[in-house]
């Protein structure tokens, strides 16, 4: 059951072949059996999920209408609000915080009869590329327990890859959905900025953040996007465009499509990565696409730009965590100043403090015009460059990461780890939609991801292309031959 697509699981539920209770119990048993080792979940709602499933079975028996996600268990990254449930952002600061409201995406999933089965582990406040900065537990890559699952949506990625849940939501600020998806051999989609509501997502860097889906295949990604990919009046950056909907006609070829590849920018790719990437660019040609060499040399500045702007926004976003309205309140303090200092000292981990301090430096009055303004202008240049490229090309492709998943014990420097986001940051900088599709294995058997990027608002085009690409890779057969036995 764990290797069935969510769309097929749902068909079996709707035609009575499987009950919602049996589906939920199956995944709960897998979580019980394997998550002790993997560490994907922070919280599992077994009783509630079974109760909801019973209700869905009743609804189906009575012939009542059922939502698009009926019968499908779904996990949420633990920075997405679910009313009445703990929300920690994997931080000690929020270890006792309980969500007072539902995020828009949570509400939409519930309305569509999806069954929220639990909350997944992440880097603290989504700051990281390994899930190692979580204050509570470590998450391991289901393909190779010595390796990182990536981050910051590592818990969601590991949960899907290990077959603990068919679909999970993550959040992506610089690659935090796509990079762990690539490391764990699954599909991860970062929607266009504004395509999915951020209401109820704990912000990290508001002009970069997006909630997005993770699943084993592109059809399931498209299914959940039909539910969450819509305008929200509670999010002032929400795009007023028609609800996400994939064209009914399947695209079997990419004939006539111009696809850009920034060959010069890919010089840091690993040897394995180069071989696999070139092979798949060639397969795009066989599908009828014309490959165009494009200039994205400006992206060599994206890491510096990202650190300047995202840290500045993060220092503002996290200023609200002062012990007054949220978590980690200390009673034995003499003054409000002492409260701020003590709760932030004890509540935040090293990486979060580091980024807040950097952001504060960036915004400090004497320096603001110097770094921050410059970064804003370079961001405009990057957006303009993508406009020029997309006036010639439909899509851009590049590897998701420079190499496969890194060794979790050996690579601990946060700056080194963030190099894994080198190819993903540009989509957040420019507001583009981008998807990572598993495309092969490195020599050490770790998965590699292939990234397809499209202009803002063209999410359907990117997912259509990804569906066509997915059909023409042999990752599925690689998975069945090479993935660890418990995953198959």
């Amino acid at each position: 059951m764990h290797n069935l697509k969510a769309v097929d699981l749902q068909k079996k539920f709707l035609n009575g072949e499987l009950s919602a209770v049996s589906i939920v119990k199956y995944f709960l048993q897998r979580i019980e059996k394997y998550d002790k080792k993997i560490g994907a979940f922070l919280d599992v709602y077994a009783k509630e999920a079974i109760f909801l499933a019973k209700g869905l079975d009743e609804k189906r028996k009575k012939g009542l209408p059922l939502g698009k996600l009926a019968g499908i268990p779904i996990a949420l990254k633990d920075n997405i609000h679910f009313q009445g449930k703990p929300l920690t952002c994997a931080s000690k600061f929020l270890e006792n915080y309980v969500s007072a409201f539902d995020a828009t995406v949570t509400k939409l999933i519930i309305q569509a009869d999806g069954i929220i089965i639990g909350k997944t582990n992440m880097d603290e406040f989504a700051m990281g590329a390994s899930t190692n900065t979580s204050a509570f537990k470590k998450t391991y890559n289901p393909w190779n327990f010595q390796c990182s699952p990536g981050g910051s949506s590592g818990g969601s990625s590991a949960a899907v890859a290990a077959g603990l849940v068919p679909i999970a939501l993550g959040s992506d600020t610089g690659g935090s959905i796509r990079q762990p998806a690539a490391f764990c051999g699954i599909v991860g989609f970062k929607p266009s900025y504004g395509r999915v509501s951020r209401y109820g997502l704990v912000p990290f860097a508001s002009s970069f953040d997006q909630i997005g889906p993770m699943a084993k295949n592109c059809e399931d990604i498209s299914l959940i996007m039909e539910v969450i990919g819509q305008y929200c009046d509670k999010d002032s950056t929400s795009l007023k465009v028609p609800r996400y909907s994939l064209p009914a006609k399947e695209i079997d070829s990419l004939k006539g499509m111009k696809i850009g590849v920034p060959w010069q920018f890919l010089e840091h790719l690993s040897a394995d990565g180069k071989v696999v990437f070139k092979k798949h660019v060639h397969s795009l040609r066989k599908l009828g696409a014309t490959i165009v060499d494009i200039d994205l040399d400006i992206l060599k500045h994206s890491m510096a730009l990202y650190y300047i702007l995202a840290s500045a926004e993060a220092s503002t976003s996290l200023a609200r965590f002062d012990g007054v309205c949220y978590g980690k309140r200390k009673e034995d303090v003499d003054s409000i100043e002492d409260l701020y200092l003590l709760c932030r000292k004890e509540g935040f981990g090293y990486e979060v403090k580091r980024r807040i301090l950097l952001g504060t430096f960036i915004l400090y009055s004497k320096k603001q015009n110097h770094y921050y303004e410059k970064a804003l202008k370079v961001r405009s240049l990057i957006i303009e460059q993508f406009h020029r490229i997309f006036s010639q090309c439909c899509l851009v492709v590049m590897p998701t990461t420079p190499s496969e998943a890194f060794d979790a014990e050996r690579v601990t420097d946060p700056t080194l780890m963030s190099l894994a986001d080198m190819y993903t940051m540009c989509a957040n900088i420019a507001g583009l939609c981008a998807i990572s599709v598993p495309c092969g294995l490195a020599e050490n058997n770790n998965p590699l991801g292939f990234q397809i990027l499209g202009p803002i608002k063209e999410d359907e085009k990117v997912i259509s292309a990804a569906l066509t690409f997915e059909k023409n890779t042999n990752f599925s057969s690689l998975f069945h031959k090479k993935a660890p036995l418990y995953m198959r």
Partner: protein
Amino acid sequence: MDKELFLKLANLAKIDCSTSEQEAFLGHLEGMVLSFESLMKIDTDNVASFCGFETKEGNALRDDIVEMTMDPQDFLKNIISKEGMIKLPALLKT
């Protein structure tokens, strides 16, 4: 970046750190600032600053109508409160 500036930033950010943490953070910050230098050399004359992704609608404003978006009781569950108000320590040190 020097220790004096670092302590000013730590105070602004309300981040209290030990001496060893200060040294570690200072080292990291110095490294990050060095890495920004290549970005600073890019020619951005006559380039407008990014101020949001273009939308036809411009700024998204909503009508100034008071709505109950959250039950106050759910909000109060997460804080130390007294008689429906948030309880705080003294604003001024005595």
